């Protein structure tokens, strides 16, 4: 898979559970579990190759230049340390701030994520915060090192709708103020619609379609993307939903050819044997589907159902 992202841009990474979103993010920052390893490819960050860097060099990048917001705000704060300490750590280790300057830095960060009375709140512990506040604190930690890229891995799945809306707005504000680039991992197309400039759709560990957000919603090229869009209920619309048949595949035993072909309503015979390649139906738009192959399109296999 490949994707690229410019400074200040927001990329949405959409896909179902287990499609490899988290793994992708973790491999960018070089923190795959012990059992996993990158078998090929490269990660270029501000012109530097990350995959070949040692853990030591990566450590200097993690937290400082690339930060990450994890999915579960309840679990991602250490219960035994104060908010101050946890927010301060990146600045303490990376910028080597101490004493008063460290304190004011932390206050500034907490203010930035709209924590009320930060000088008082930072002395408290995570369990004293509500879920929304915790998630904002995790955001503050991400910002602490002054990163140029923040990867947010489903940061709002456990939040209430109203809190989620607040948080998403906050992220946007911060992005506007600091100009960080954002990779937004989610399975919710609504969030993508709200937040992102570009979208990459993942299926079974691969990016199957990538496009600017409007283009993707208006003119999805990959059948999976289309199906996904069709399966989401919309307010004020009570028509039966479009249900993708079958179940998401198990990554350990992927179908041959295009991984989506067993569930695909438009599958061609070749889909079962040949892995599709990238097609570029428009500027900045890429999709991996044999249907986009001109010749194949001419000789329709099955028709759209």
């Amino acid at each position, binding site marked *: 898979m490949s994707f690229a992202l410019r400074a200040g841009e927001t990329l949405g990474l959409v896909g179902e559970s287990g499609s490899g979103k988290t793994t992708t993010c973790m491999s960018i920052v070089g923190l795959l579990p012990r059992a996993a390893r990158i078998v090929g490819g490269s990660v270029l960050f501000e012109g530097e190759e990350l995959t070949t860097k040692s853990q030591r060099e*990566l*450590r200097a990048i993690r*937290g400082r230049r690339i930060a990450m917001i*994890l999915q579960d705000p309840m679990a*991602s704060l*250490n219960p035994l340390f104060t908010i101050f300490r946890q927010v301060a*750590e*990146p600045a303490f*280790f990376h910028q080597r701030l101490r004493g008063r300057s460290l304190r004011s830095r932390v206050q500034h960060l907490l203010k930035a994520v709209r924590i009320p009375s930060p000088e008082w709140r930072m002395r408290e512990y995570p369990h004293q915060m509500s879920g929304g506040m915790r998630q904002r604190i995790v955001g503050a930690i991400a910002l602490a*090192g002054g990163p140029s890229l923040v990867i947010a891995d489903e940061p709002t799945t456990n939040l209430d709708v109203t809190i989620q809306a607040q948080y998403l707005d906050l992220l946007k504000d911060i992005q506007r103020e600091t100009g960080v680039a954002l990779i937004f991992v989610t399975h919710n197309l609504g969030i993508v619609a709200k937040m992102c400039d570009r979208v990459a759709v993942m299926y079974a560990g691969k990016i199957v379609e990538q496009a600017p957000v409007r283009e993707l919603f208006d003119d999805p090229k990959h059948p999976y993307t289309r199906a996904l869009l069709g399966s989401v209920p919309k307010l004020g619309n009570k028509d039966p939903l479009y249900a993708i048949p079958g179940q998401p595949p198990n990554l350990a035993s992927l179908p041959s050819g295009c991984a989506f072909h067993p569930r695909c309503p438009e599958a061609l015979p070749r889909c079962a044997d040949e892995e599709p390649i990238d097609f570029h139906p428009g500027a900045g738009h890429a999709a991996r589907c044999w249907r986009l192959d001109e010749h194949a399109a001419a000789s329709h296999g099955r028709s759209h159902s």
Partner: protein
Amino acid sequence: MAAFIARRILYSVVTLVILSGTIFLIVRLTGDPVLLMAEAGASTEDLARIRQQWGLDRSWAVQYVTFMQNALTGELGKSFNYRLPVSELYFQRLPNSLQLGLFATLISLLIGVPAGIVSAVKVNTWWDSIAKGVALLGLSIPGFWLGLVLILVFSVSLRWLPTSGAGDWRHVLMPAVALGWYFAASMLRLTRSSMLEVLGSEYIKLARLKGLPDVVVIAMHAFKNALIPVFTLAGVNLVVMVNAAVIIEVIFAWPGIGRLLYEGIFQRDFPLVQGVVILAGFMIVGINLVVDIAYAVIDPRIRLTR
């Protein structure tokens, strides 16, 4: 917090009542102490006299009530054998037992905790295998055998250490190793599994994502969280080592509480056995309280919510 501690104390009292009742029954069901106090040819009148002298002629219920009444005033009765108040005997032996228990705890911690951490951090490497091997050995060698081998090697053959008895650090070394060895294994296992659990948590992931040095992540973030169960086990183990290190104390002729208990049991020294077990119970309860409070110090969730 106060209510929390109060509730813990209430639980402890219930525990102690159950404990005292159980031990009271058990010692009485195991036979007549008077026969062991008298000579082989003692007459029935002799026995009756001794029985009366110690209040053993009264009904169990009366004996129990008296016992509990006295216990509440800190009076655990007088040992048949030593003719000393049980509490006095206990506290005479306590320093020795504490010395042994603390040394052994230290040894078990020094072996168990670092090895457990290494084994968790380097899980499934040969470090891990070595650590697990050590733990297995610890669990599979009976303490008395290890004790005698130690005496054989370090006292008899090498002549480095005294064989037995209490005294300076050289005396405590072998019993502490023989005692701590077994507990080191359980310490190792526990440290390992609780470290593994913590290391897999989201907040450790986040700590790594912050770009913190591994040492900080493991020593500060992970270990502090993994400490709590280890702490509890160490506390309970300490109490066991202090109060019931029977075998090691016998092998090394260590003048501790374990031997007091051991001899008390075989002599049917009711007040002594009851007293030691109840004081041990107190200690368990006390240690648990200390551990609970220590939790509260370590863990703000408990400190503030309970």
